[in-house]
């Protein structure tokens, strides 16, 4: 069994197509769905969902069927049977998902609402910022998720709380990781000094938790993990290190974190810690790490 690892191309969460298969040209081609009334279902998938009808009888199938197409070229094949069963007995969480652009999603909301479909997301608590999904059941009770992703999924989030006073530097033991809800950052203290890591996941802006038992940060939306330097460590593709906020030590020895300033670094660039000495600070712009200023 092969597990996805860093460097391999698993684009399932990265928004890019990826190559996992050694079979040339491998990809999703079509789905065949059992339906009870071909005319009724063809109309629903054409008028409500918005698929293009290619025609009937185009597949090597004995039963009456209609072939519909998406912009990707993928096909949905509606096959008429006497008693469609959208899911087997005892099964759970059976569903299929359409992917739309944000504009298509807004139009779909209007079409679905006009068709009397409740466009609320029954699993909203499992979505990261910028992920949008609504549920729809077709005339034969096949369950569809209709999904898109907006720019909120990857934008830089500033909490609007300015400089956060964290407390006296001696309060933070070497090796400690302290979450701050105000400002949504983790304050890391190690033998190099202090580092403030944003709690917003770089994959889809989910809020990270500290898994102390694993010495890592974890995003439960898609499983992204980061070490205590902020390096991304999970299977996901193209996810950068955690963003940072500059840390300073006041002349009085108070650790402060400026949440109005967001720092980013490259994957091959180590994070720079603010030394624990009184008066130390990390300057930086919104991109790239800048110098450490020491008194």
């Amino acid at each position: 069994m092969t597990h996805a690892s860093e460097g391999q191309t698993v684009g399932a969460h990265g928004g890019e197509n990826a190559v996992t298969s050694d079979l040339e040209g491998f990809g999703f081609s079509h789905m065949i769905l059992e339906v009870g009334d071909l005319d009724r279902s063809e109309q629903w998938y054409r008028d409500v969902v918005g698929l293009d009808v290619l025609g009937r009888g185009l597949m090597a199938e004995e039963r009456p069927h209609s072939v519909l197409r998406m912009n990707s070229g993928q096909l949905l094949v509606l096959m008429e049977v006497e008693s469609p069963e959208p899911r087997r007995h005892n099964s759970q969480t059976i569903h299929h998902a359409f992917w739309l652009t944000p504009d298509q999603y807004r139009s779909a909301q209007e079409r679905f609402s006009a068709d009397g479909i409740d466009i609320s997301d029954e699993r909203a608590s499992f979505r990261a910022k910028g992920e949008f999904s609504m549920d729809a059941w077709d005339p034969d009770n096949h369950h569809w998720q209709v999904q898109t992703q907006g720019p909120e999924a990857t934008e830089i989030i500033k909490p609007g709380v300015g400089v956060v006073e964290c407390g006296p530097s001696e309060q933070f033991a070497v090796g400690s990781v302290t979450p701050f809800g105000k400002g949504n950052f983790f304050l890391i203290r190690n033998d190099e000094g202090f580092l403030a890591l944003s709690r917003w996941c770089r994959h889809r802006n989910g809020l990270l938790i500290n898994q102390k038992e694993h010495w890592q940060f974890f995003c439960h939306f898609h499983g992204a993990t980061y070490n205590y330097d902020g390096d991304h460590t999970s299977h996901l593709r193209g996810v950068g290190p955690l963003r940072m906020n500059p840390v300073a030590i006041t002349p009085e020895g108070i650790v402060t974190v400026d949440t109005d300033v967001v720092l980013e670094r490259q994957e091959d660039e180590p994070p720079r810690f603010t030394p624990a000495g009184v008066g130390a600070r990390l300057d930086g712009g919104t991109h790239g790490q800048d110098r450490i200023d020491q008194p």
Partner: protein
Amino acid sequence: MAKIESISHSGINVVDLKEAEEFYASIFGGLIAHRINFNTDDAQSGRAVHSDIALNDWLFAMCLPRGELPMPPDEQLRGTNGFRHGFHITREAFGQLIGRLQRQEVPFEGPRAHPDNSPLGESVYFKDPGGNFLEVCWRRDVVRGGVALDAG
């Protein structure tokens, strides 16, 4: 122009997660993208036990059923348990896949030719160990692929 881009994923049921992971890895080269509810944080979030397996532009969220899952007869290799998933490969790779199914003793039906006016050329049909029906074809037209997303 359709008003939908693609189909990104499906949630399916399997009877043995490890067996299913190994099947999709060995036949299609799938990779485990995510295992959910195998730790306390996931369990507390209330999600079903499942493995997400990434297959290029596709993702299967493979969940365990609530109870015994009715299986199609052993001899039935082509069908729909409500649905069937079809994957495309190049015509050149089609023979490679058939050889792989034979070597791994996965029974299959076909190849079967589609009508001349079909977007599809030929297909073979088989099942995964959980009784989910699968189809692999080569296509006459071009599929640019979709965006596979997490099952959420």
